[in-house]
């Protein structure tokens, strides 16, 4: 599987960064702060609903139905956030077979044998980077952080709907390889949280890719 990094001695920034000049460039500290913020927001959503559920039962045991509704909301809100994360790698509409086949040939030239097999099975390319292990789809990417517990789901795409699916993935893969931190800066963060939350919302076909990324992240 691949290893994302710039060529030795080459300092290059993704040109697309100019369109998001106000964003701080993503690095370890930025990721840590964003992860903490997402956890805080999740806790701030969950704790009040759980507290209300407990309080209702204590004050009026007959209102257990209302308590259950509050608990359901405490469960549902983080699940909706995780769904938003899973959506970034959801497969898009396929074009005709021939362009898809040609695009797949080019993508196959860019990745190793193992990554090619994983892509054929899951539709995602596994790419090792400095920030963690990436799963690149056609309209987004998932970053599994070292330690493999937290994931970041990024929405990022080439705005050209006529491109075959594998070409859209190749666009993102090449940009990631050019400048990993720049790639994460240009992309819009859709979700950050526990890997297990994302796994539950992910298409079944893609779950082996997340497991492979977690294994690769734990080996770092």
């Amino acid at each position, binding site marked *: 599987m691949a290893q*994302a990094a710039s060529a030795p001695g080459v300092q290059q920034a993704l*040109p*697309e960064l100019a369109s998001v000049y106000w964003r701080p460039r993503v690095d370890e500290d930025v990721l840590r702060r964003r992860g903490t913020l997402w956890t805080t927001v999740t806790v701030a959503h969950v704790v009040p609903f759980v507290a209300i559920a407990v309080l209702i039962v204590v004050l009026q045991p007959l209102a257990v139905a209302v308590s259950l509704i509050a608990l359901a909301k405490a469960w549902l809100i983080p699940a909706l956030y995780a769904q938003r994360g899973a959506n970034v790698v959801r497969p898009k509409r396929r074009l005709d077979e021939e362009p898809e*086949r040609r*695009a797949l040939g080019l993508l196959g030239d860019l990745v190793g044998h193992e990554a090619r097999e994983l892509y054929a099975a899951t539709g995602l390319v596994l790419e090792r980077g400095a920030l963690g292990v990436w799963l690149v789809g056609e309209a987004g990417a998932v970053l599994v952080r070292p330690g493999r517990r937290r994931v970041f789901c*990024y929405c990022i*795409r080439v705005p050209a709907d006529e*491109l075959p699916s594998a070409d859209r993935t190749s666009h993102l893969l090449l940009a990631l*390889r050019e400048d990993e931190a720049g790639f994460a800066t240009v992309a819009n963060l859709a979700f950050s949280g526990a890997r297990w939350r994302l796994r539950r919302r992910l298409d079944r076909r893609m779950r082996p890719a997340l497991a492979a990324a977690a294994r690769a992240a734990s080996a770092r």
Partner: protein
Amino acid sequence: MSRLVRMDRTGHTTLAEWTAADEPSVESAVTAFREELDRGSFAVVPRGEGRAEQVTELPVDADLVVMRRPIAGG
């Protein structure tokens, strides 16, 4: 034989092929390369697994140069 490739609706199109020793083929590749840059594409040279380099001049020694379009947050 080196190749200049553009990712497009056909999967990809080979815009030029050249060998460093064949000057006319290099010139024609450089012309095609500049035309693609003028259209707003970016040129990327895959440098083995996990590595890619953005270039603004055609690297004559590269095996493959891929023209990609700009990406954006979705």
